[in-house]
Every structure is written in C-alpha cells, then in structure tokens.
C-alpha cells in the first residue's frame, strides 16, 4: 500500500493505517533518533513523540514532500529539542564542538571479528560525532536521503548540507583512525 493511500485511510480514522505507517517507518525513525540522542531509552521516547506529532498533523502533510522526509524532519527537530531540554551543554551549532565520548571501547582486535562487530564499531564511531554530524551521515548513507531531502529535513541550504556532510565524514575518519587504529588495516576503513 502506498504512503498516499495509508495517509488517506489514516485520516478516515482507520487505526490499521496508523499501525502500517508505524510498521513501515519505525526502525528508520528510531535509528535517526538514536544516532542523535545517543541513548536507547531516550530514543524510544523521542520516537514516540515523533510519531504522535506526525499523527496529530497528518492532515497538514503536503504530498509534494515524501512521507519519509516529513517524518525525518519531525524526528530531527524533536531529537534536537529533546537534547536542548535535557543536555543543553552537548548541543552546539558550532562545527568545532567536542565529540561526545563513550566509555566502552573495542578490545577485540581479532581478524576473525564478525561483520556485526564491524558494524558495531562503526556505530560507536558515529556515536562520537555531534548530533548534527551523526544525523547528516545517517540520513545520507543509511536512510539514503537525497541532498535536497536532507535540506528539507535539516532546514539548510544545499551548500550547507554538502559542507556538513564533508566535515562529518572527515571527523568520522579522524575518530576511526584515532580510536580504532588497530582495526583500520583489518577492515580498510
């Protein structure tokens, strides 16, 4: 069922349509929220807020945008608002902000490390990025959003998004080289 039909049916009051929208986008929205707020419990709260906001405003959704982009926009702003309220000290719009440090580090340098561990390693590196850097990397590479969609989500110009993406990749590379240097050669980061 297409997004347009799901929205129409939801607006007509069909609860199953809301469940279908949720089922289709829950993991994507949760991933974006988690990458920004960096805490599973808080990501659950923010995901719930995101969908409730979206459902409340579904009648205002304009079909010139994609439903996914609209949801990510709500998720992005809800996550940033959540951080501003809870931890204002870590949210800076300045690109030179300090990364958020995580305590857990990889101690297993085995060449036989499985792909899951490889993914976990990358996620740990992304977790050290600022919320905005993590968001732009996640939107572009994992959620496969186009640059113009990211512009709408983050309310930035195309040039700003491209610059942010470039800087975020650079920082990610530095984090990987610095904190996970023993694995670089193994996985050719």
């Amino acid at each position, binding site marked *: 069922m297409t997004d347009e039909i799901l929205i129409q049916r939801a607006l007509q009051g069909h609860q199953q349509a809301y469940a279908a929208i949720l089922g289709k986008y829950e*993991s994507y929205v949760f991933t974006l929220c988690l990458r920004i707020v960096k805490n599973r419990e808080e990501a659950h709260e923010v995901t719930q807020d995101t969908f409730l906001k979206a459902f409340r405003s579904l009648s205002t959704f304009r079909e010139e945008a994609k439903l996914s982009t609209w949801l990510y926009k709500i998720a992005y702003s809800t996550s940033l608002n959540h951080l501003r309220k809870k931890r204002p000290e870590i949210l800076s719009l300045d690109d030179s902000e300090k990364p958020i440090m995580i305590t857990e580090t990889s101690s297993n340098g085995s060449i036989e490390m499985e792909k899951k561990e*490889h*993914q976990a390693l990358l996620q740990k590196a992304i977790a050290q990025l600022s919320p905005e850097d993590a968001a732009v990397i996640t939107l572009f590479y994992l959620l496969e959003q186009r640059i113009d969609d990211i512009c709408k989500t983050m309310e930035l110009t195309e040039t700003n998004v491209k610059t942010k993406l470039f800087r975020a990749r650079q920082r990610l590379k530095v984090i990987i080289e610095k904190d996970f240097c023993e694995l670089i050669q193994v996985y050719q980061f």
Partner: protein
Amino acid sequence: MVTENTLWDYADNLLSAQERQAVEIAIANDPTLRTQLDEILQFQQNLSQQTLDQPNANLSQHILQAWAQEQASATEFKANYRPLYVIATFVGVVTFALLIIAARSINPIEITLPSFDFSNQLLLISTEFLTAIVAILFIDKLIKYRQHVAV
C-alpha cells in the same frame, strides 16, 4: 584541480556528467588520486553497509496505545464543547434576527443614540456570557495553532 571533496562528491554521485568526466580524466592521469578514490569508495561502502537499529518490540504498541488515548480524549473534548457551540450558534442567530428586525423598524429620522442601562442585570449577564463564549473559542483556536506550530 580535483580535491578530496570533489572525489567524495564523485563517489556519492553528486557531480554533473561534465564534472564526472573531468574527474575520471584526472584519475586516469594520476595514480595518487586513484588510490585516494579507492580509499574513499571503501569508506563509503562501509558507511552504506550500516544496519538499522531495532527498537524494543513493544514500542509500536506503546505508540498506538498513546495515540488511541489521545484520540479518545480529543473526542471527549469535542463532545464537551458541543453544547457551547450550540448555545453560541443560537445566541448568534437570535442576535442577528433581532438586529434585522430592529433595522427594518427604524425610522432614520428618529434615530437617537442608544442609552444603556448599566443597572440592568440581564444586559450585563448576557454581555458577559457572550464574551466568555468568544474567549473560549479564541483559546481553543490558539491551542490548536500552538500544537500545529510545535510540529
């Protein structure tokens, strides 16, 4: 001049056909650029192979329950407001009808400025009642607008 930024844009398919061609020519003539691009492609592949994080299994259920509760509250809220809307409509129609009747019966030559009797309790209560209805309707619109803006 092909910079690292340009190579990333090339890898991410963000360049025009003409720009891509220029990069390909530069890469063909410069083994260092080729190596740099290979590293970028490897890094890009790693980024693209990330997997989605899965929320707890009961998250959907929580969201749907919260949404159902919210809809039930909204329905109850509307039901509570319905009598007010009925009264407001009735008062509005009666006032409008009285104004028309009054306008038809007025002789323009005999028009004198109205004099209000502020000791008239009925007039005061009616005015306060109408003001309260208008205020409630205004607050209702304001709350809806703020909810909309919050999204």
